[in-house]
């Protein structure tokens, strides 16, 4: 087990001061479900850490609020809280779905949305959804506050734009339009307690006559960083949604994945599977046919 000094922050200011003083040798501890695994493994990424700043008791950073069509999640909101939130289930069901599938009940009771974001695993469950929502990350430091779109905050596998001395305090996004449908599908080696082998987040805004007015498709565990695949979105945008079009968009996303990541050992598996997941997610979000329930899923 990696060894370190520890301070429990009793206020955000205290945390920011400790992080500022610790510089690159300090790190934030929230739920600990990723960090403690890393410490136990003496992970190369955190072996330089000498001071752990525990912000877990800063309850003022755990909230789910809506202010004028903008939904704001405090960074310390647990996955369990998001999954159970009536607001999130009503307004952003695919976020509740993603959070409800992170790890296990025990993990979800401790793991936070801020932590999931800052850990920036390519297979993270909440990130495809947050990217599809075009969420914004609010970051505080002693120098003040800054906001970054989540797509720019994520820089690479396990790499974010978070600088020494900074803490993510909030993740915010616009409430999806009432005529939107969403879907999040995760495939893991098990039905529970698994890391995504592949996932997909889809957000569609439907117009009259089954027209796709707006579409966002973000695969997970498919690209180095969860990102929208605009070439696949183009296949359905502005057109009347059909099963054939959804299938085509799935194929296109699959090809884009290989174009971006190159051929890997997992490609023969991932190509047809991400195509199928994308197709199903588009149809579900577009209200055509829900294949995410039952034995057909």
């Amino acid at each position, binding site marked *: *087990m*990696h060894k370190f000094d520890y301070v429990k922050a009793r206020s955000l200011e205290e945390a920011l001061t400790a992080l500022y003083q610790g510089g690159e040798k300090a790190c934030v501890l929230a739920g*600990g479900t990723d960090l*403690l*695994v890393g410490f136990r*493994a003496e992970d190369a990424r955190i072996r330089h850490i000498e001071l752990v700043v*525990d912000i877990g008791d800063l309850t003022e950073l755990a909230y789910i609020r809506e202010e004028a069509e903008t939904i704001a999640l405090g960074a310390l909101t647990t996955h369990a809280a998001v999954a159970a939130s009536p607001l999130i289930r009503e307004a952003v069901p695919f976020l509740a779905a993603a959070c409800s599938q992170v790890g*296990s009940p*025990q993990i979800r009771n401790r793991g936070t949305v801020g932590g999931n974001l800052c850990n920036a695993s390519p297979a993270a469950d909440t990130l495809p959804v947050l990217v599809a929502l075009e969420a914004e990350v609010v970051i505080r430091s002693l120098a003040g506050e800054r906001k970054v779109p989540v797509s720019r905050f994520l820089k690479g596998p396990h790499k974010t734009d978070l600088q020494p001395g900074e803490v993510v305090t909030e993740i915010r996004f616009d409430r999806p339009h009432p005529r939107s449908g969403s879907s999040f599908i995760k495939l893991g080696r098990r*039905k529970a307690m698994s890391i995504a082998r592949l996932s997909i987040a889809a957000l569609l805004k439907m117009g009259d006559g089954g027209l796709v007015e707006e579409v966002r498709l973000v695969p997970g565990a498919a690209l180095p960083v969860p990102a929208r695949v605009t070439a696949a979105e183009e296949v359905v945008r502005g057109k009347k949604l059909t099963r054939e079009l959804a299938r085509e968009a799935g194929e296109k996303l699959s090809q884009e994945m290989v174009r971006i990541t190159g051929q890997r050992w997992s490609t023969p598996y991932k190509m047809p599977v991400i195509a199928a997941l994308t197709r199903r997610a588009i149809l579900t979000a577009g209200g055509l046919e829900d294949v995410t329930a039952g034995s057909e899923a």
Partner: protein
Amino acid sequence: MSLLDLKLKVNGKEYQVRVKPHKRLLDVLRDDLHLTGTKEGCGIGECGACTVIMDGRAVNACLVLAASAEGKEIYTIEGLEQDGKLHPLQEAFMRHNALQCGFCTPGMIMSAKALLDKNPHPTREEIKEAISGNLCRCTGYQQIIEAIEEVSRLHRED
């Protein structure tokens, strides 16, 4: 690295411990408080053998620093027995042969207790979901689910 003086509330009692900062709640429960019912199965939050209840929620004690647990209400398997009388979950597990080697059992029971404390009459699906973070290599889970179902039925008859 300076030692930490921590006040921990476990099973309704307050304990004072002095530990190194990297010590996990699991370590302090077992090594300092000698509450060895909570087991280390994997140490990375994937098996649930270390499940305890912290502020009313099931958590993996291997992923909580002891220092983080200060100020919280912690319940372990040892806290279930009252005045020499076993908890209904413990009795049901025995009646239903819901354990063989017993290694997963404390964590399994704590996950079940956390469920029933919030949802006294869960469906079978809700029970399965509540124990989805607890691995058992011996029983095949059926007896575990039936034991929990029986306790939830008992609650209904109260």
